[in-house]
């Protein structure tokens, strides 16, 4: 196969941002290999009335439940949090909620400020221009002037409407004197970059058939492809190949028909996600790296962070049309984001308001939680619940812990015989205390809003959406896998550009920060000697 300048593995949030960034150098030949296929928006579940059924089948965010051809087995029985992802063109952004707040400045300095975690080898100011560039591409709705962030000039679309439920909670936060702000959502609240406006239905988590949600198949990818990046779907990379001098020579991959290929490349870029990237590294063994590529320090797969989540549900007496609107984009509160010495934990959390559940989920959860009976009373109780509920998700910052990790699972393999992963994860004491605090505060919010609390618990199992830390960045090759530009310490023409490189987790959804990092890394990568030599 003809050599290329850069091979990117994975087409999700970070792979797409990398492809777009590299496509700006027209002389470069860039290929992206993606193990899944491209989903067809015209056949997304929401093009049918029974779309909710698909949330437990083809559009399930849980790979074992979805069991698609491109999914690899994930054994998460040793974790209280189940791993979620999507393996297809566009990666997990196909199913994500599009809630894209930035990390805060303090998130990059947890060791200096609070004596926990590690400092990152870069800071908020280094990322600020890339945050803004990313927001322009992804189409981010929101409101400037948020006192929880430094002054900035974000290129934002008008905020996603709060709806009556959001307004009720806004009043409640005001009554408590606590911070709240409309969501930062990758949702087109007006037509943007050739994509249409959101039609405000809500089911963003099964794929947006409207193309209004900023998933990367409709944001970065069209431009990257126009600018020459080639995408090959159905191609599972099983090994990053090395020469005898600790230089990557390309990747070995297997296509859907089972035929094996080698793609030689001057530079290899990994963007397979916080579990897919360590999986590929651990599977790429060689004489130089018998325990997995870049794993000479034993760090690959360790320090997995998942943002353990607490959930409180409130039910209002009145119909607040709470199920209407993008499910995960309403408002957030960062009143308890930063460390307060008066609390029994360090660091903090975001309270992320979730809209009410759609009809089938309302009925099923209500029944299982004994709030909506079967029989004659069913319809009345359903009517008192549907469109009356709201959720507060407490997104907690979990601290890096080497014992929390991803390893290969030789007993369960994907369609090509490549091992799946085992996930071992336990909540730290600091996180447990933080979650307890968050649940108590959530109840106060609902009380102030005049809503009844019907459920409140943590951690919630089916919330392993944010996969971070498994190939961390740093300046010291003994304590990190890559440098601040995602460049592997041990193999300088190998880059990792996804959230595997996160040093700490922050307490907000990771995509904005991951993509800003990717853009910064690729600016650097374009100046890599292996690239400049070939582009010349």
């Amino acid at each position: 196969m003809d050599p290329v300048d850069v091979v990117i593995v994975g087409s999700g949030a970070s792979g797409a941002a990398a492809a777009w960034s590299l496509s700006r150098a027209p002389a470069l030949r860039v290929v992206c290999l993606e193990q899944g296929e491209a989903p067809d928006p015209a056949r997304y579940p929401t093009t049918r009335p029974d779309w909710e059924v698909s949330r437990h089948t083809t559009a399930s965010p849980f790979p074992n439940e979805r069991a698609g051809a491109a999914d690899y087995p994930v054994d998460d029985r040793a974790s209280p949090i189940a791993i979620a992802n999507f393996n297809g063109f566009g990666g997990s952004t196909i199913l994500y909620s599009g809630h894209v707040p930035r990390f805060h400045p303090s998130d990059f300095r947890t060791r200096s400020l609070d004596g926990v975690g590690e400092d990152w080898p870069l800071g908020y100011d280094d990322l600020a221009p890339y945050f803004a560039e990313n927001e322009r591409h992804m189409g981010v709705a929101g409101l400037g002037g948020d006192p929880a962030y430094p002054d900035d000039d974000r290129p934002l679309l008008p905020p996603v409407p709060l709806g009556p439920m959001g307004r009720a909670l806004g009043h409640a936060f005001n009554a408590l004197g606590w911070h709240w702000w409309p969501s930062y959502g990758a949702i087109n609240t007006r037509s943007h970059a050739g994509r249409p406006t959101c039609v405000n239905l809500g089911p963003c988590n099964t794929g947006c058939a409207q193309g209004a949600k900023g998933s990367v198949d409709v944001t970065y990818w069209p431009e990257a492809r126009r600018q020459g990046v080639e995408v090959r779907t159905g191609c599972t990379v099983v090994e990053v190949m090395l020469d005898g001098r600790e230089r990557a020579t390309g990747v070995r991959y297997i296509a859907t028909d089972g035929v094996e290929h080698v793609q030689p490349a001057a530079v290899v870029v990994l963007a397979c996600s916080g579990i897919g990237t360590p999986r590929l590294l651990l599977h790429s063994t060689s004489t130089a790296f018998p325990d997995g590529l870049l794993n000479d320090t034993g760090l690959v797969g360790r320090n997995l962070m998942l943002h353990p989540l607490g959930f409180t549900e409130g039910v209002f007496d009145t119909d607040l049309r709470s199920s209407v609107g993008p499910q995960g984009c309403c408002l957030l509160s960062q009143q308890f984001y930063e460390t307060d010495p008066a609390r029994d934990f360090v660091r903090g959390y975001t309270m992320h308001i979730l809209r009410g559940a759609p009809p089938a989920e309302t009925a099923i959860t209500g029944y299982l939680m004994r709030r909506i009976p079967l029989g004659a009373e069913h319809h009345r109780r359903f009517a008192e619940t549907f469109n009356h509920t709201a959720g507060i998700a407490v997104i907690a910052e979990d601290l890096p812990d080497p014992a929390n990790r991803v390893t290969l699972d030789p007993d369960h393999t994907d369609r090509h015989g490549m091992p799946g992963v085992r996930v071992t994860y336990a909540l730290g004491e600091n996180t447990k205390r933080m979650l307890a605090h968050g649940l108590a505060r959530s109840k106060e919010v609902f009380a102030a809003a005049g809503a009844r609390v019907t459920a409140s618990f943590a951690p919630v199992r089916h919330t392993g959406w944010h996969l971070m830390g498994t190939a961390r960045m740093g300046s010291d090759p003994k304590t990190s896998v890559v440098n601040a530009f995602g460049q592997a310490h041990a193999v300088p023409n190998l880059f990792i550009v996804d959230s595997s490189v996160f040093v700490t987790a922050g307490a907000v959804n990771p995509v904005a920060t991951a993509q800003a990092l990717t853009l910064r890394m690729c600016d650097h990568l374009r100046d890599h000697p292996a690239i400049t030599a070939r582009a010349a």
Partner: protein
Amino acid sequence: MRKEASLTTLIDAILPGDAGLGLPAGSRVGVPAFLESHGLAADAAVLLSQVETVARDRFGIGFAALEAPDRVTCVERAKRADMHRASGVLVACLRAYYTDPGVLRALSAGAVPPFPDGNALDDDDWTLLEPVYERGPIHRPVPS
């Protein structure tokens, strides 16, 4: 001779219609077909025979002959005895019912999928944020 209850009786015991709300009974909106197409027909048949047994043991008559509230009691008792299988069937019945276009229309929940129908994106009055602005910055200063 024992008269066995039908699957329709079971489904309508769980999800009866409500004329006042314009909601049809479960058997009228394709719940049985859903169970069939999702490979749950056999489990539903087992549940049906379990509710029949509970009805005869507890009430001394067949499930079909019971009053509506007693039918629900039988379903719940049968579920307790065979939680996994029965819950699977009951959850599927609810899922089938609440994804039926007629039911969704009757709920008058505004526009619901399928696309491209939708709801308007309203404007908000952001003076609601005044108190948040007025309290000033809350982000933590970080030494460079």
